[in-house]
């Protein structure tokens, strides 16, 4: 494996398990990076007070202060809304955990055991293979819809989806302000159906968790899902636009 050109990132590994800590350190070394180590969220916060890290590899399941809570506290610090980049590391690969991580402000998600190529990709800021797979799925779905109807039919669906999605997410916001979680859940459910049909798989995932969170009364997670779904709009939009112009290319 080639050594990255500018391995001058300041990296902190927060991990309670000694073997995993050692493993992460070795992997980073192999990729040409050095790192500092912390054994729990408290140590990670303290270390961040001393060194302005670029990246934290944050284990989610740690004693005293876990990765989720540590991230919440870091993101609440002045000037830390976006930096450092926080990478969730966890054996819990569930969709819900993924969404919770993004909702609290984590930037990336690595499943355990860590695969060195994935770690390298994340550190170099490369697009994750899952993101690429999602885009491929979306394009395939548009082709399928075109088969069901025709190009005009897909155009009609895209235009409805654009308007409705923005509107519904706005309504989720209004519902949240009124503390009406039932209404937010219904909206997420509708979005779930339309995004699935439109091939927007990440939006579908987020909305599924959003509906579940609304049913469980977790307003914070509902809010997080709303934000993530909003962030997903331009990504989906780009593919739709590209699809619309594909004949011209």
């Amino acid at each position, binding site marked *: 494996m080639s050594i990255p050109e500018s391995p001058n990132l300041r990296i902190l590994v927060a991990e309670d398990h000694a073997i995993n800590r050692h493993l992460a350190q070795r992997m980073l070394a192999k990729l040409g990076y050095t790192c500092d180590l912390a054994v729990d969220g408290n140590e990670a916060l303290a270390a961040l007070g001393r060194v302005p890290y670029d990246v934290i590899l944050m284990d989610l399941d740690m004693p005293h202060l876990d990765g989720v809570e540590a991230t919440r506290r870091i993101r609440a610090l002045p000037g830390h809304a976006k930096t450092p980049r926080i990478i969730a590391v966890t054996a819990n690969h569930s969709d819900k955990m993924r969404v919770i991580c993004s909702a609290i402000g984590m930037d990336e998600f690595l499943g355990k055991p860590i695969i060195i190529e994935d770690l390298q990709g994340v550190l170099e800021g490369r697009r994750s293979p899952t993101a690429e797979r999602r885009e491929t799925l979306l394009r395939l779905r548009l082709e*399928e819809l075109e088969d069901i109807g025709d190009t005009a039919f897909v155009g009609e*669906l895209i235009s409805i989806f654009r308007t409705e999605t923005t509107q519904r997410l706005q309504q989720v916001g209004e519902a949240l302000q009124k503390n009406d979680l039932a209404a937010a859940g219904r909206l997420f459910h509708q979005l779930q159906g*339309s995004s699935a049909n439109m091939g927007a798989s990440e939006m579908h995932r987020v909305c599924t968790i959003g509906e579940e969170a609304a049913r469980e009364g977790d307003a914070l997670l509902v809010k997080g899902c709303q934000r993530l779904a909003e962030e997903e709009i331009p990504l989906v939009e780009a593919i739709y636009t590209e699809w619309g112009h594909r004949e011209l290319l």
Partner: protein
Amino acid sequence: MKVLIVDDDLISQLVLKRTLEQSGHEVILTRSGTEALKAFQDDAISVVISDWRMPEMDGVELCQTIRSVRKMNYTYFILVSSTRLTPEKYAHAVGMGVDDFLLKPLNRDEVPVRLLVAERIINFTSEIKRLKTLLPICMYCKKIRDDGNYWQQIESYIREATGSNFSHGICPDCYTKIVEPDLRALNAIPAAAKA
């Protein structure tokens, strides 16, 4: 077939409608259980495809209500969901009369095939119903008139219609009424005559 779609999401409605029309079905769109029940008064509807989670009345409740409506022909009910159903929900839905399940996003190839199954089951149920309803039967010899206007022995009619075979025996009533007098008559004949 005439298919009733129930979904509160416009995109899901449109995608399903197109898919069904492409395989030659006639489609009625509704947005809620209440609207669906109103449209369901149309006797020609043979399949209902309903979303599961809807405000007011959900898909399973709609199915339950539809099952309580008496109709000439069986209505095939397909429940659509955006997430996989838990085993409990699955069992509950089947118990309430749901025949089949589909998952969003609806697959272009899957939906028409499911409708073929629906059509087959609807045909079977109406066939059975036709068999069970009035059969013209001769009041004297008990022959049955079939579709081709031929009078058949009841055994051969049923064998042809259902594939059942008959083993002939004698019921106690007929034994008393027919067999016993015959036996008595036989015994009454002097032994010499028999020999």
